């Protein structure tokens, strides 16, 4: 690879345009390892890093699709809180009505996903049938959906009434260690359990969180749809040149509507993951500002804000880069007030490096 980059000067730019996000990721990873060593590489830290960024990651994947269609969705954070607030409220009232915990949690989850889908469909209708610019239509959603969530809970917190099941998605996971058969020693007392594999600080098995699995699964499916499915091809065509797409007989309205609906559904998924992890919904805080994080991840990942070109895998790396920055700054004890400045610089830098890739 070094031979290629020393070939001639003008090959560096195209290389960075395409692979810059990977280079940035590798550099950040190396710097983090060098500066913090085990504090950073510690499996538990990596798990936390992935886990805490999964909800924004799910949003960013949806945002990639929206941006490929040359749209934008500013309302994702508000859709997260509204869907989670509705779902949790529904679940609590079912539990209050003596439903079994299992069915209450399942129905609550469905309400969360359905609310997200519905909110997204509203955005899509405004953009497609109302012919409102996506920026404006979803700016309305940004304000309205959050305000509804605040009204539901009087701007307070909705605590989940489910004692165990509701938290499984957000906190549970697949254990990355197994327990060896307890050995009974001569005194007849059971020995302390022995684990083989990755353990956390408390000596318990480390888990691969379900939320992270959901994040990656969503990303894989979205990347598949973008590059292999008809819907993805249509998104790219509409985003690259809407007029040409219309002339080619593509149902533009239906394509646009669907991408906002899918975005809403994914906001519902993110809302479910978040509320499950917290086991409550803070209507004032949940999802606040996550539209910016999601858009930033998409941009860092190399998707063109002009539409017509995008890559979900780039967005996933973008999410990890943003997460790593926060992570490393936090471990290093940098004031959270400064973290925004560093993030901002990285976003601008990413765009500078990748600029011109679509001219």
């Amino acid at each position, binding site marked *: 690879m070094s031979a290629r980059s020393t070939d001639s000067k003008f090959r560096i730019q195209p290389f960075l345009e395409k692979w810059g996000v990977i280079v940035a990721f590798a550099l950040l990873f190396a710097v983090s390892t060098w500066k913090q060593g085990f504090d950073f590489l510690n499996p538990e830290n990596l798990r936390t890093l992935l886990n805490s960024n999964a909800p924004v990651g799910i949003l960013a994947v949806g945002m990639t699709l929206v941006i490929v269609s040359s749209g934008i969705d500013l309302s994702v954070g508000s859709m997260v809180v509204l869907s989670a607030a509705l779902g949790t409220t529904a679940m609590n009232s079912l539990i209050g009505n003596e439903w079994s915990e299992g069915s209450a949690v399942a129905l609550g989850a469905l309400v969360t996903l359905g609310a997200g889908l519905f909110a997204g469909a509203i955005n899509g209708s405004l953009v497609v049938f109302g012919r409102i610019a996506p920026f404006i239509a979803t700016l309305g959603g940004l304000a309205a959906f959050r305000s509804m969530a605040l009204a539901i809970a009087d701007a307070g917190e909705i605590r989940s009434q489910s004692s165990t099941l509701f938290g499984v998605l957000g906190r549970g996971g697949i254990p990355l260690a197994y327990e060896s058969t307890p050995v009974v020693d001569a005194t007849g007392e059971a020995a302390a359990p022995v684990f083989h594999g990755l353990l956390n600080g408390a000596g318990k098995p480390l888990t691969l969180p379900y939320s992270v699995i959901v994040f990656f699964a969503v990303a894989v499916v979205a990347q598949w*749809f973008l590059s*292999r*499915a*008809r*819907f993805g*091809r*249509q998104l*790219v*065509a509409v985003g*690259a*040149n809407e*007029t*040409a*797409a*219309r*002339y*080619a*007989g*593509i*149902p533009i309205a239906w394509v646009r509507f669907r991408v906002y609906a899918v975005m809403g559904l994914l906001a519902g998924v993110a809302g479910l993951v978040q509320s499950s992890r917290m086991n409550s919904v803070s209507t004032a805080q949940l999802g606040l500002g996550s539209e910016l994080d999601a858009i930033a991840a998409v941009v860092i990942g190399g998707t063109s804000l002009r539409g*017509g*070109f995008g890559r979900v895998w780039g967005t996933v790396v973008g999410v990890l880069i943003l997460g790593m920055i926060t992570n490393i700054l936090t471990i290093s004890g940098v004031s959270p007030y400064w973290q925004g400045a560093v993030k901002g610089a990285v976003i601008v830098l990413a765009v500078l490096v990748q600029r011109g890739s*679509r001219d």
Partner: protein
Amino acid sequence: MANSMARRDGALLSAAAVTVDYPGVRALDGVSIDFRAGEIHAIVGENGAGKSTLMKVLSGSVRPTAGQLRLAGSEVAFTRPSDAIRAGIAMVHQELNLVPTLDVAENVMLGREPTRLLGVAIDRPRQRARARELLAMLGADLTDDHALARRAGDLSVAEAQFVEIAKCLASDARVLIFDEPTAVLGEREASRLLALLRRMRDEGRAVIFISHHLDEVVAIADRVSVLRDGKLVQTFARDAAGAIAGEDALAQAMVGRELGSIYPAKGEALRQESGAVGNAIELVGFGARGRSSGISLAVKPGEIVGFAGLVGSGRTETAEAIVGLRRREGVVRVDGREVAFANPRAAMRAGVAYVSEDRKGRGLHVTLSSVANMTLPSLDAYTHFGGARVDSRAERAVAQRWIESFAIRCARPDLPISSLSGGNQQKFALARWLETKPKVLIIDEPTRGVDVGAKGEIYRIIAELARAGLACIVISSELPELIGLAHRVVVMRGGTVAGELSREKLARHDSDERIVRLASGLSEEKESHA
């Protein structure tokens, strides 16, 4: 010395042996021409004759490969349009360049706003007064306070044109270039504009006037120059009696006399079969609302019908209305059944395909690969599981099949289609619609921006498709193409059918002149089937 010579014979602006080479094409070939103060000099010629290139040279947006420009006797070299404007040469473009959100007065004075407070603040009263003065000079209605405050975006095309001309006057232009100013105007507005051109001339400016409408040219030009294939063919001047060369002489000079052999034999099969076959597509009193109307036409399978007419005569709009891209009026029947397509998708399903004239903006996605472009209209045919998977192998195979059958030069179908030449792009644009198995193919400007070699191949393809039973409507501004390819030609003018040339009339030697006459309004005779 040269200076005074120039003044004596009145040449304000002149071009000497100007040649312009574009990659692969010589757009202008040693053209020498002069424009005098106090004269309207019309430039006519077919599309591609080099008119717009000449205007671009004069207005500073294209630098000639060879030759020179003289302004009032001294040599000038413009490197950008603002150089020409500063020298007093202003061009009124076909597509108007007003700022839609600014008002009339602001647009007229754009870039030369009168200021006060040491140049910090715009002097609105003086801006208005000056704009009013200029518009009044033009005889425009836009001089009261209310009109001056209207936003340019709300103006009609004719009004916007007045504002555009006032803008040129604000820059003290001595040479005014009008590129098809009447193409977008109605008859009354056009005659007002022509009166304005005369006034500009009488004030001693040099007026350069490009038009396809020969009747206008004959009516107002003091001299007419004819361009063909990048060369100046002839310049006609008014004789002592004030008459300019006959319209026929103009039309003849424009068209020239060569119809090459790049046109394939017209399908004879059609004549034997067509009697028994119903119409593939039939229009009755059809039109694109606001752009064309009252068009009745039937095309049989295997027939190629040409659509001739000037730019703006409503040909493209009519075609777009057929496939549901514009609001329509009247009736369309496909295979005898009345249809009303909501969009090109619906048209495609019923077997009607439209290949756009605007490859870059509408016909193709230039940033996408050749394969993706190729399969976009027919994508459903390559998907499995309800669209969840596009079979990329099948896609590549179909692209490869067309690459072979159309001899498309495309080594890497996975690269953006913009990497191909115009001719090869056009073949893909055609192939993508043929892949939808249409019964009716409407193809708009099939060879625009296509090199001569590929032109012949595209003609051959269209002729073969027709022989195989496809009903083709070919819209073209190139007369030889229509005459060489079509079984009959419908001529449009001002949004409706001005006449039709049957197969027999097309075969006659004066068919091109007839078309030019019909299209430019010199002759109102209706040509009928009989």
